[in-house]
């Protein structure tokens, strides 16, 4: 009996040792490039750190960013407002469009495969290459976008070089004076939003298609027997049963917009007149172009907190349906 227990314990020890051997590479690399850096980010943010590490400042970097230093805090709050605007003009349009396309695409239809292949294509394309192409499609002089708009009498839009707000431009065109606070997002930011929608539409269609596949057909059949109309089917069955995907896509898209860097960097580099300088762009400018690593790191920590909040909400609400084993 005793011998048996001892042998079992020995086998347990061996299994433990083996398991950790299997895990060592993952632990080392995750620790070195994910966990430690996350701690260092906080550490760096507590110092004056302009290229080289300077004096300990406590939380002063955060105070500077949030309210103490006028220039810094104005830039930060401005970038946060730009990010929120960017999200507000991107996410709803993107989701509505994806939902409609997915709904149509889900039905029995010839050539569904071809449509899907085309719709997913932008999603796999590299942001830098795609943004380079967009710069030319929306070129003020040579771009095809302005040529097409010219057919309906709109001409001379400067797109990614236009700092003026879209409502202000609309007002000017109609001869109405628009107050400054209602100028709206700059046309450049709208351009960035158009790019983002184009880039991620396929991803959202894909998720919605998966969700539509999970809705039992019997529900539709039963409702139709009861005389429900098409619109009622969509509103009473599809939308509610698709709500997990809708919510999932909403959080993923919001996080994606909060984190968007490459597209804005290539399309506008934060300009014109800082109207597309989102938090990630401001962070990059502070850290990489101005060499203020401590301040940049503090911004990174703030941004991370915002993103983590979104992630946690997402996990929480989807939690019931998530399986971690």
């Amino acid at each position, binding site marked *: 009996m005793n011998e048996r227990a001892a042998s079992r314990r020995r086998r347990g020890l061996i299994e433990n040792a083996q398991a950790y051997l299997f895990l060592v590479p993952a632990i080392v690399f995750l620790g070195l490039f994910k966990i430690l850096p996350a701690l260092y980010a906080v550490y760096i943010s507590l110092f004056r750190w302009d290229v080289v590490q300077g004096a300990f400042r406590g939380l002063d970097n955060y105070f500077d960013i949030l309210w103490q230093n006028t220039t810094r805090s104005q830039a930060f709050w401005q970038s946060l407002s730009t990010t929120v605007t960017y999200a507000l003009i991107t996410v709803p349009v993107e989701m509505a469009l994806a939902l409609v396309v997915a709904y149509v695409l889900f039905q029995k239809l010839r050539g569904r495969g071809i449509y899907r292949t085309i719709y997913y294509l932008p999603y796999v394309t590299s942001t830098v290459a795609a943004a380079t192409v967009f710069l030319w499609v929306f070129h003020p002089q040579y771009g095809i976008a302005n040529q097409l708009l010219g057919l309906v009498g709109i001409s001379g839009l400067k797109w990614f070089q236009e700092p003026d707000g879209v409502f202000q431009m609309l007002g000017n065109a109609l001869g109405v004076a628009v107050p400054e606070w209602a100028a709206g997002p700059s046309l450049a930011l709208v351009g960035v939003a158009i790019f983002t929608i184009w880039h991620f539409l396929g991803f959202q269609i894909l998720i919605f298609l998966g969700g539509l596949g999970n809705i039992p057909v019997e529900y539709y059949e039963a409702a139709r027997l009861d005389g429900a109309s098409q619109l009622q089917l969509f509103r009473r069955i599809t939308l509610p049963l698709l709500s997990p*995907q809708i919510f999932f896509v909403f959080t993923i898209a919001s996080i994606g917009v909060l984190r968007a860097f490459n597209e804005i960097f290539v399309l506008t580099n934060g300009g014109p007149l800082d109207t597309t300088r989102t938090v990630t762009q401001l962070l990059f400018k502070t850290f990489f172009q101005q060499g203020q690593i401590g301040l940049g790191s503090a911004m990174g920590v703030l941004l991370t907190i915002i993103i983590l909040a979104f992630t946690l909400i997402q996990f929480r609400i989807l939690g019931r349906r998530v399986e971690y084993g």
Partner: protein
Amino acid sequence: MNTPQVLPRVLTRQVRPRVPAIGSSLFKHLMLIIVGVVVAYPFYFMVTSAFKEFFEATAVPPTFFPTSWHPENYAEVWSKQPWARFFANTFFIAGTSVLGEIVIAVLAGYAFAQMNFRGKNVLFALFLATYMMPGEATLIPNFVMMSKAPPGVNPLFPIPRLNLYDTYAAQILPFLASAFSVFLLRQQFLAIPRELRDAALIDGAGHLRFLWSVVLPISVPALVTVAILSFYASWNSFQWPFIITSSEAVRPVQVGLYAFQAEAGSHYHLLMAAASFVVAPIVLLYLVGQRYLVQGVARTGIRG
């Protein structure tokens, strides 16, 4: 289909559509085609413009179809920058990252799925935490770690310096371990019955042997999914290589393309030629491995 499912369970199987039809099918096709044209137009534009000659490329209004074809544009672009070097760099970086990531994730995923050990739950929670940590949190510290320590500064708690600025290693090492791949493979390995493993162990095979000759062969689709997603991420990455490299010797294609923008100036036809060959490999991979990529994205919900 035994591909695993990692995060939200809601995103599973795609069933044959049997939803009632709306509208006539002509109207639906019309709508899908319009969306398709808008989505695909930039690609068409990129490829055709690359064949135009300079004056036609900047003509107002633009021509829809090149009046004369100039495939030599590609040769011209190719000779303007060391593209062969950039491509070799990218393939090397992506290939090494994919291989390393798979080996590490297979081992860790197997341990989490099929082995019993102390601290399993705590460790798993820690992995999950790194998965949620966005890249913005680690960008600056990783940059500091990769670069050289400036002379003359002696802080109480110095950040360790790896001194790898402008190397391949700096572009590979941070991406070798991915909690995401570990989860994906763990989920796949959980589906393997424990009886099978116990039988193998009783027959005298070790864990490594069982993993190699039983688990891996039946997990090929999941491994392909991990490989494709990882290759895709590596091929398209821009921000990190942009800040961590400075010489052409280790520069990947995306940074090369960005640098070429400044050089090409208003020679947009050349820029489009460059963009098309930077995009080509990943589009080919997509067309060949669409099934795996789509499954991977659908099951895990990653967004670029």
